[in-house]
């Protein structure tokens, strides 16, 4: 998707530089041989899930992968994996993406991948990565061409998945609000980002330091009003 990639160009890249550095050593033939061996493993790992006619891993393949990882396919760690791969299309992994991701994680077998997942989680929750992951999650849901918004239902599921662990209370109330209001039928990127800032900056649930004269999205102004009216 050309549009998605152009967006990515403007983003400050703060993930996955690690992949290259670890491989830049002396160009001795020994290391080159080691490199190609790893590559082979990664590629054959890829082969075990690939859809041959498509040339990439499809949803079925991902499900199989999840089974082998003993992780539910709706688990957030799969999303994190997709993030690490910078996968563009939801439900599919291309070979390039696969290689990128596994190289960055420094794994080449299923068991190593499984072990690396907890590290991946830690990596994602680091402040310098989390924002990027959060925005990635939103973009990952824009499955249609030129789609700019995510419907409320899906947005709630995604929020729960991605922000739930960190901001359980905010997510619960906000998703409840989203489902009860009628004005907005979709969430756009700006509102999505605003919500993260909201969780990061506003004290909850007292909402003491919230100022509706500031540039918070209108949907959040309405959310705060809703919270306040429920409290009284």
């Amino acid at each position, binding site marked *: 998707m050309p549009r998605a990639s152009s967006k990515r160009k403007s983003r400050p890249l703060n993930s996955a530089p690690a992949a290259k550095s670890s491989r830049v050593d002396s160009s001795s033939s020994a290391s080159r041989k080691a490199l190609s061996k790893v590559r082979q493993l990664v590629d054959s790992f890829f082969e075990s899930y690939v859809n041959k006619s498509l040339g990439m891993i499809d949803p079925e393949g991902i499900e199989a992968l999840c089974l082998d990882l003993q992780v539910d396919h709706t688990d957030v760690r799969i999303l994190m994996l997709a993030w690490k791969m910078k996968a563009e299309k939801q439900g599919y992994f291309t070979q390039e993406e696969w290689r990128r991701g596994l190289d960055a994680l420094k794994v080449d077998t299923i068991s190593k991948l499984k072990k690396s997942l907890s590290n991946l989680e830690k990596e994602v929750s680091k402040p310098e990565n989390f924002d990027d992951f959060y925005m990635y999650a939103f973009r990952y849901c824009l499955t249609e061409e030129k789609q*700019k*918004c995510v419907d409320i239902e899906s947005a709630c599921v995604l929020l729960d998945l991605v922000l739930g662990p960190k901001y359980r209370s905010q997510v619960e109330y906000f998703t409840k609000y989203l489902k009860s209001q009628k004005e907005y039928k979709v969430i*756009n*990127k*700006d*509102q999505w*980002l*605003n919500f993260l*800032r909201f969780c990061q900056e506003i004290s909850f649930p007292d909402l003491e330091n919230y100022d509706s*004269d*500031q*540039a918070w*999205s*209108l949907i959040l*102004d309405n959310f705060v009003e809703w919270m306040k009216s429920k409290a009284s």
Partner: protein
Amino acid sequence: MVLHKFGEKLYSGLVGTMTLHLQEMAKTIEAAQGNLFLEELNRKWNDHNKALQMIRDILMYMDRTFIPSNRKTPVHELGLNLWRDNVIHSSKIQTRLLDTLLELIQKERTGEIINRGLMRNIIKMLMDLGSSVYQEDFEKHFLEVSADFYRAESQDFIECCDCGDYLKKAERRLNEEIERVSLYLDSKSETKITNVVEKEMIASHMLRLVHMDNSGLVNMLIDDKYEDLGRMYNLFRRVPNGLPTIRDVMTSHLRETGKQLVTDAEKLKDPVEFVQCLLNEKDKYDKIINLAFSNDKTFQNALNSSFEYFINLNPRSPEFISLFVDEKLRKGLKGVSEEDVETILDKVMMLFRYLQEKDVFEKYYKQHLAKRLLSGKTVSDDAERSLIVKLKTECGYQFTSKLEGMFTDMKTSQDTMQGFYAAYAAELGDSPTLVVQVLTTGSWPTQPSITCNLPAEMSALCEKFRSYYLGTHTGRRLSWQTNMGTADLKAIFGKGQKHELNVSTYQMCVLMLFNSADRLSYKEIEQATEIPSSDLRRCLQSLACVKGKNVLRKEPMSKDIGEEDAFFVNDKFASKFYKVKIGTVVAQKESEPEKQETRQRVEEDRKPQIEAAIVRIMKSRRVLDHNNIIAEVTKQLQSRFLANPGEIKKRIESLIERDFLERDSSDRRLYRYLA
């Protein structure tokens, strides 16, 4: 003696002799009884002065030589000082003098006549002795005693007088004191004594006076008591915070009255009456400020801000003002001189300026103007145009360009009709006369275009017109607005009564059906004419249920129209007029649902205006924070309407979504313009 170096002896001799002499004088003065005291003092003073003059003349040489070189007080001055020390400041005289003077002034204040000439001389004496003597021995005490006097008097007055009377009394006292100063006191005392009066009589009681029941400021305003108000203005002007007090009370009263006016349900029933009341109120206060408050600008401003406040309390004010104008332009200004027309229009403009939602006014004005133009019901074209010019001057070209377009369309249509009849003269001889107004879609208020089935004669004629018009204006599309037309029908009723009926196009379609049928049910009429049902019901009601205009008869005779109702021509129709008007194309106060619809359309129209303002501002500023955008947008749109911050925020978000703007990545409150 001076020449012989005996200056010192001479001088001290002088001092001594004079002192003794003065002490003698003092005793005489002290001995004087009662009223004669002052006279005696005065006489002795005059004597002393004469003597002093002589002495000075005699001792002139000493005055000029010995005294300056030995730094002694000059003779004349010496004489005065000795007088002061030995007479005025003598223990028995000093107090008595002061008391006598004050007593006399007190007498005068209570209405007695006193010897003013004597007073003048004595006071002059004190002044001659030096300003410090005047002040210490007289003025200081005079002011204190006066303050006590006026404090007590004002207390008495305020208990028993009403506001107007009190102010009269205060004014009188003030003038009295000014007169007193000019007659026998030092002119420098004027400000000081007037300050005392002002403080005691006015400043201390300001609030009580203003708020006095039944006679205070509010009552004066209500009863147009120009004289009393003027007096209050002039008196209060003299004290600190006096005018602001009047202004504040006037403002809050005006706002209260205004608020009641605009929320009075009775008044709201008649928009023209409503606006007339507003104009009357404005005239009233203009007059008060002119006659009583000497056109004080700060009061004018208070008046303007009050009007702005309460006019906008009622969201229907823009609509009502437009209806007022409509009434005037349709009939109210008939036979009125050009000058008076201008005056009324200027007054309307003044109310217009107070409106916050000028765009709502524009919408209604357009609607009402359209109706006026199309029904040909305007009293004076000049008056219409004059008002448009005034609106243009106030709001700029954009506001009025569409309105002017409407006038142009009317004129052009006339020319088109002439061309049409010229071209088709032969064919159209027998046909009904058709008058078409071709309206340019963008200029006129938007209408949903619904057509109905016109009677055969009409539709043939309309088709001829259509082909004529499109022949000369290729590429245009014409759609008949059957809901806005009128028709004149000649009718002959059962008993031979002949009438000319002026009806709407819809009504014409219905009536023409009866040329070929005696009885028609509602359903049949609906099918034949294809007029939308709500319009059809209204149309039938106006034809069958209104006394004096019931050219049709309905069975059953109820007021509402049922699906199965039957209609007949009313053979017994009677009217004393040959021409009967049944059409309903006159501008009226909107019904609740119509009002909601207009309001919604206005809100919709505002969205692009807000967005345009945001884009304009961001284009020039490039980066701007949230609060500043809101402020600037509001300011830019102020001349049309008051922009809601929430709505502005929504528009900003919409622009972000459409990639016109973006948020700054580090400071969430900043927006950037995306080229």
